[in-house]
């Protein structure tokens, strides 16, 4: 009797302890995120003005706005989406729905996992060698978007495959048993059910790409660029602008660095929140 009492007491203690430890870990994460945002707001907030957001830079970039960097980041991200989403989603569909189980497929999966582990600066070098030099796209939005697309592909493929695997096998069986072909089953039943997960993965991948510096270093970014007129123009981009202004300014301009950082984080946050809202609505939606 007393032995069982001791056991119960010990179990309660362990229970309380583990709840505390895991809760503390969660609190650390939440506090870091909040602290980061708060500091960013504190340092960058005062820089934000209409002129800062929409003006051209002047006085060696230390005065004026960051409009060209915002435009450049926007077009690079759009370009990345154009290249990475169709290929990534299609590859995810193949791996989840069509690929035979075997050595070939395992090899493809392994290469994708390896691709995800390649440091982003290596993507930058790869983009320089392939797109900038070999294909002759020069340092441009096109080269940068293609490089960022390579970087983002593993994320998009993996999240698409994951989202498709979440769709119960029963649903595929039901569609096939009604005479639907594989593709009709995928298009009308599997993809709609997996869409929220696929979109979330895509947005996460793209927002990571939007914040990357290294891959665009040699492929798209330029310190002093006018607004781009075509995909073959070089552009200013926010992460690169932050990097340059923080490390090699003509004269120190911390308000530009922190202001640009705040704009970048705010932009990515807005897109992520929009995606999360859409996903929540899509999950609740009655028909699709």
């Amino acid at each position, binding site marked *: 009797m007393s032995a069982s009492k001791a056991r119960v007491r010990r179990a309660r203690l362990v229970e309380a302890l583990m709840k505390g430890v895991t809760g503390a870990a969660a609190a650390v994460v939440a506090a870091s995120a909040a602290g980061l945002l708060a500091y960013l707001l504190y340092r960058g907030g005062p820089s934000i003005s209409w002129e800062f957001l929409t003006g051209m830079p002047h006085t060696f970039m230390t005065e004026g706005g960051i409009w060209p960097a915002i435009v450049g980041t926007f077009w690079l991200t759009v370009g990345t989406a154009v290249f990475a989403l169709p290929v990534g989603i299609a590859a995810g569909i193949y791996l989840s729905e069509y690929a035979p189980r075997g050595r070939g497929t395992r090899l493809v999966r392994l290469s994708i996992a390896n691709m995800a582990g390649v440091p982003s600066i290596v993507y930058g070098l790869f983009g320089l060698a392939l797109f900038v030099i070999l294909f002759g796209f020069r340092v441009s939005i096109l080269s940068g978007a293609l490089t960022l697309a390579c970087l983002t592909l593993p994320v998009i493929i993996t999240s698409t495959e994951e989202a498709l695997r979440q769709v119960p096998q029963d649903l595929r069986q039901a569609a*096939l*048993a*009604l*005479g639907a*072909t594989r593709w009709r089953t995928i298009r009308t039943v599997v993809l709609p059910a997996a869409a929220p997960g696929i979109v979330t993965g895509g947005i996460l991948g793209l927002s990571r790409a939007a914040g990357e510096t290294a891959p665009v270093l040699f492929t798209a970014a330029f310190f002093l660029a006018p607004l781009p007129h075509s995909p073959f123009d070089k552009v200013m981009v926010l992460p690169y602008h932050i990097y340059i202004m923080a490390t090699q300014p003509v004269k120190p301009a911390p308000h530009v660095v922190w202001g640009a950082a705040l704009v970048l984080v705010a932009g990515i946050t807005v897109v992520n929140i929009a995606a999360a809202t859409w996903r929540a609505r899509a999950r609740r939606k*009655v*028909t*699709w």
Partner: protein
Amino acid sequence: MVSINPGSFELEDVSVTYGTETALAGVSMSIDAQAVTALIGPSGCGKSTLLRCLNRMNDELGNVTVGGKVLLDGENVNSRDMDPVELRSRVGQVFQRPNPFPMSIYDNVTYGPRTLGIRAKAELDAVVEESLRRAAIWDEVKAHLKKHAFELSGGQQQRLCVARALATKPEVLLMDEPASALDPISTQLIEDTIAELKSEVTIVIVTHNMQQAARISDRTAFMLRESMDRPAGLVEIGNTRQMFTTPHDKRTEAYITGRFG
């Protein structure tokens, strides 16, 4: 060999091989049109595998070889000329767990007809009402056809799945333990539906519930896999009453009287 009634099967020495392992072998039997045939036997005896031979769902598993002949109204189901889309519109299937699509009740029922290319609203509307009526769920859902199928109860979902399978006007309905995930009242409703349907549709039902087999079927087939190094097979098939009272095979008797399985 060739039957005149639409919806009858003739199986000759049917076998199923997954990769290198033969799961089922030597099954020869006939399935009568407009009757209920129950497939019974312990787990792993090949009932569901045999059922999937009838609408070629084994094709979808990959690396599966089906041997022998499966004739639907005299036509070889496995021949190159047989279009699986057409076959599956003639041989519908209801699964063990209710698996409505994540869409409206209406869209669930019209999925099969739309797959066959039917687009006219009036025609689809008529199919929806007819199918839901035949599955005995029309009165419960007629005012909510645009509602999401997931809002229905489990039993209602399964009857919706029956309606969905009936919407292509199949000659045969395959049911793989259709009531095993349902409560007794829903089970009763499914059994009533089967009794209603059998005058128009051939029904082949896999069941673990021997009372259910005895209650609803006209003919019963007993299947068995006697050891793991031998494929499963058919022990015997006969009229349900005869199978449950005077089976020819001692193994059938042992199973039915509850001595194993």
